[in-house]
């Protein structure tokens, strides 16, 4: 379970998160929608401690992310995260991208790491590309590599931050399909997305972010078909789904 309690976060004068409360149960799929700059990416990065918070609490499986005695490197192994930008390590083959953390962080023997990597690459449809460098991959393939790399660590949670928004339209589908597969396998997921159709179909719960607060949340039908707040109505009127 990820529990976020009354989280406030500022960058200098700018308050980006203004009291966020959110709980994600194991097995749940939560999609996050909301206008640009509303703090979605910031919240995801706070969950795995890449950003600090000013006040409040975040717990992952009972461990406080910001307690001084928390081993963040250990905690991050439970949280897979994939970003909007392609983040493959360009100097390593596709397979080594996946095995690096298995070998260096989890300290698995080479054979075992290779086997896990090949299994995950197969799962996202990249096994044939195992020995090429990421530069030779399309954007969609790079994002699937990012997903495979995160999954290889056997995380309890997967966080996705607009992983399709830098992609050419014809490549979006393959990445969303991979995420759908994951959700149907029971992975706990938080996905920030601008793909409203996807947000609606895959989610158990949809969270609407606006100006640093969760302005509305609920099951997909409630949020998409009978939005209550004017801001959400307005936001949805600008998106197709």
């Amino acid at each position: 379970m990820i529990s976020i309690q009354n989280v406030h976060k500022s960058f200098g004068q700018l308050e980006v998160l203004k009291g966020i409360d959110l709980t994600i149960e194991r097995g749940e799929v939560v999609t996050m929608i909301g206008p640009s700059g509303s703090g979605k990416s910031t919240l995801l990065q706070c969950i795995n401690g890449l950003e600090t918070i000013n006040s409040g609490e975040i717990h992952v499986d009972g461990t406080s992310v910001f307690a001084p005695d928390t081993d963040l490197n250990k905690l991050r192994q439970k949280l897979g995260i994939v970003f909007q930008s392609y983040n493959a390590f360009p100097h390593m083959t596709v397979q080594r991208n996946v095995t690096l953390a298995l070998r260096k962080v989890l300290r698995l023997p080479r054979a075992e790491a290779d086997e896990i990597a090949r299994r995950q690459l197969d799962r996202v449809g990249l096994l044939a590309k195992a020995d090429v460098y990421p530069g030779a991959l399309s954007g969609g393939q790079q994002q699937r590599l990012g997903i495979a790399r995160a999954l290889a660590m056997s995380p309890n949670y997967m966080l996705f931050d607009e992983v399709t928004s830098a992609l050419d339209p014809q490549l979006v589908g393959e990445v969303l399909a991979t995420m759908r597969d994951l959700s149907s396998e029971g992975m706990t997921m938080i996905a920030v997305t601008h793909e409203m159709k996807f947000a609606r179909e895959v989610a158990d719960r949809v969270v609407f972010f606006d100006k640093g607060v969760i302005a509305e949340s609920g099951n997909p039908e409630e949020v998409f078909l009978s939005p209550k707040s004017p801001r959400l109505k307005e936001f949805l009127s600008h998106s197709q789904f």
Partner: protein
Amino acid sequence: MNDMFSTGITPRDYWMMAYGAWKTIQMTLAAGLLATLLGIVLGLLKMSRFAVVRLAVDTLVDVLRCIPLLVQVTLIFSGFAVLGAPISAFTAGTIALTLFAGSYTAEVVRDAILAVPAPLRRAARSLGMTARQEYAYVVLPLGVRQAFPSWLGLMLGIVKDTSVVAVIGYAELLKATQTIITRTQDPLPLLTLAACFYFVICFPLSMVGGYFERSLKKRS
């Protein structure tokens, strides 16, 4: 050949120049290695969390880059002598070249590290890597690729800059050449020969460098 003999260059002179070239290579190797190490340390300190450290290093680097190498070499050589702890021309020259090239290397190192995209570094940390692992497996390898061409340029610069150390009597290639010229009074053939020696030292370096650079590119 006849023409050469008429200029009064003896076989012994060739040996003297070859020996000078060897001394040039020695100083290049020593200063190149030390300048690289110094550059890495200064480059990292340039990105220190502490403003005082950054300011101190920036000032040092600016000072070193503003004073002509000739002045630095002479100052270091005579400075130690005046202080009553004279050092050899080789040591003085190596120190001066190390400081001089090291200050440029520091810039190269810093720029290379800053060129590693922040999202890649965040990705490394989000996989559970420690800051040290992030540096070892992501920042360093990518930084080296970035820095390599400029670094190689600095090393080739050291080969040529060793000639400055002639002023304090270090008998490297140029000094050896000048000594012979004083006798023969005919600078043109000897300087041409010296130029060839410099080329022979530099060319393999830039060949190997070019090859290395291409093979790095192929793998990314």
